[in-house]
């Protein structure tokens, strides 16, 4: 017992001060991309060619980046000779609508809070059932991390629960493999109304690296109504936490 107490004192209190203080992320962390389409010269498509997932496109000559498809590999930024796009260290990425995940020149619209009735229901206590539908376990691991003392999800009233019957919504990872489709839909059906659906990670949003695979669907967008999109491959725990807190109107 004494050794436990001694070790407890030595290890100290390490819960982050987020959201009161912004997190410090590593220098090489790839967060929200910043686009400067005005720097793109006519006919240059070097960045587009480097993206195997079609996350980048040119719409009427203007560069657009779809964060729902982006794996944050930053190969496009490395390929650009004109510094027209770079990845910042901003971890805030989550959005409420699929189309908001598109980055252009303008302001990026972060997730807004739930409407008043839903916020009243879930704002102070949100229980989520997590379903991995082909997720590679990186998304799942970084969601598990939210339960550790560093992030301490419980202090915001958010908790992952074992049964969909106890849940206010589901948080899905993975591109939805053919073999998990019915289990995912069954789990969703078992959650009592009203309920939320959260897509976490590039796979759940748009199929990620498995987009258009014959064995998987392209995420949950076509299968379920999504209330929150959390981009990333996998999303950083702070990105996920930021999204959840925005949804509940806590940020």
């Amino acid at each position, binding site marked *: 017992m004494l050794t436990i107490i001694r070790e407890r004192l030595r290890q100290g209190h390490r819960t982050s001060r987020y959201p009161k203080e912004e997190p410090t992320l*590593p220098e090489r962390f790839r967060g929200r991309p910043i686009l400067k389409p005005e720097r793109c010269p006519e006919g240059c498509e070097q960045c587009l060619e480097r993206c195997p997932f079609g996350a980048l496109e040119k719409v009427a000559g203007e560069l657009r980046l779809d964060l729902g498809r982006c794996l944050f590999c930053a190969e496009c930024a490395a390929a650009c000779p004109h510094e027209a796009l770079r990845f910042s260290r901003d971890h805030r990425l989550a959005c409420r609508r699929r189309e908001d995940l598109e980055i252009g020149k303008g302001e990026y619209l972060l997730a807004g809070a739930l409407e008043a009735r839903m916020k009243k229901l879930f704002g102070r206590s949100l229980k989520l059932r997590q379903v*991995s539908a082909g997720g590679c376990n990186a998304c799942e691991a970084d969601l598990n991390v939210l339960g550790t003392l560093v992030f301490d999800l419980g202090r915001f009233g958010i908790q992952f629960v074992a049964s969909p019957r106890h849940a206010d919504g589901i948080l899905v990872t993975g591109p939805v493999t053919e073999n998990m489709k019915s289990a995912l839909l069954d789990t969703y059906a078992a959650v009592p109304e009203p309920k939320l659906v959260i897509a976490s990670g590039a796979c759940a949003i748009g199929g990620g690296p498995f987009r258009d695979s014959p064995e998987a669907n392209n995420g949950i967008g076509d299968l379920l109504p999504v209330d929150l999109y959390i981009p990333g491959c996998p999303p950083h725990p702070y990105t996920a936490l930021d999204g959840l807190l925005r949804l509940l109107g806590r940020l």
Partner: protein
Amino acid sequence: MTSPPSLLSLKNGGSLPLARVPELDYDGFAATLRAEVEGGGRVAAYFAAPDQGEGLALYALLARDWKEDLVPLRTRLGSRFASLTPACPQLHLFEREIAEQFGVLPEGHPWFKPLRFHPVRRGRDPWERNQQGLPVCGDMPYYRVEGEEVHEVAVGPVHAGVIEPGHFRFQCHGERVMHLEISLGYQHRGIEEQLSGGPHPATLYRMETVAGDTSIGHASAYCMVLEALADLQISPRAAALRAIALELERLANHVGDIGALAGDVGFLPTASFCGRIRGDYLNLSAELCGSRFGRGQVRPGGCGFDLDEARAAAILERLKAIERDTRGATELFFDTPSALARMEGTGTVSVADAEALGLVGMAARACGLARDVRLHHPHGAYAGSFDDCIIEESGDVFARASIRRREIHSSLAWLKQALASLPAGQARREVPPAAPQSLAVALVEGWRGELVHVGLTDASGRFSRYKIVDPSFHNWSGLAMALRNEQISDFPLCNKSFNLSYCGFDL
């Protein structure tokens, strides 16, 4: 026994023209394989590949750990073949896999069931399932035990925690488990299938997600295959950077697992500390390459990110601080008699079973089998610098926990040495085109165990077949064995002590 002189051997990270792979008739192939296995060899990879026309070639890659080499064998298959599983149980899943992928029938297979429940790629469905629509995952006859007071517990695919899906059937007599059958396939994304005709621009990213917690391991093995096919030596610096990332991956997962085991036996101090410390190691990976899971670090020809002197020194400093926390947190657990008593004698796998089933990695080492790619098939930065294969003999949950604790210490020692003495050189080289009509093999000791990647190329140097064997492919059978005669309530603890990958199995 001594091998016939016609057998060819191959080193880890090597390649050879397909024409030189010895081709035997099926009986000769079977006899050679059995002789090698009886002589101490084991099956590292076993797969079929479509040949010209209707034919099917069957490849076996036998690892001879004591000779540091691998023996490739080949034969041809018709629509059915005599199953070798009764004589060589470690082939049981491999043969089911071949049947499911190519519609050929292994006659006399004692446990002949689907594996991943995807449509048969060609030929006839060996189970004669309905060809309209897709196979239903988990739809197969399970083992059943009948009798008074015998009952069945079915769990999954969606489990209680934030984990991947799988289905488990326990045949129980009261609390006692007589048999556990594990049915997977829910995470099947078709990675191998998508590799035909590759590499494609998206391939590397799929490799990094074969098993997300083994991103570095699988990406390394894949890059080694590309480099072997191109006959490219990466620089010693790049090799060291890859190994550093791999050891950080091992540390994060081992520490996390000890925390999870502590949580499962109800010892919360270590559970809480290790949950946090795991994140500290992941954050070190992010210092290397920006991603907590090492995405972007391993690239064909070397590494995506170099490590300058200042950054290496900063990482080394942080590592020393995290090491103190790690030691404090884990020693607490291993000094607590009640926690140890909960693990000792629980979920035991005998060395005979481990050997027969071909277990690899930690699960094998915990049963007393010395199997470690870093020692037996050293490659890159491990060559000559790793002689510390840690084994335990009791084969129980304690042994698997203890392996992790001791490997944490040896990894830390190796890592500190490597960070302090990074060789000079460039981090990445251009990879020449792959050799046509060749076979290349790469073995990497991921944190769970041996990852095997085998690439076969066609006349234009594209992949005609790419085979991935994740350690989980061998080891799920070990978990089933560990549960025999245990209490069903010990399942979470046994399961966590293996901590296998669903994705890595399902691919």
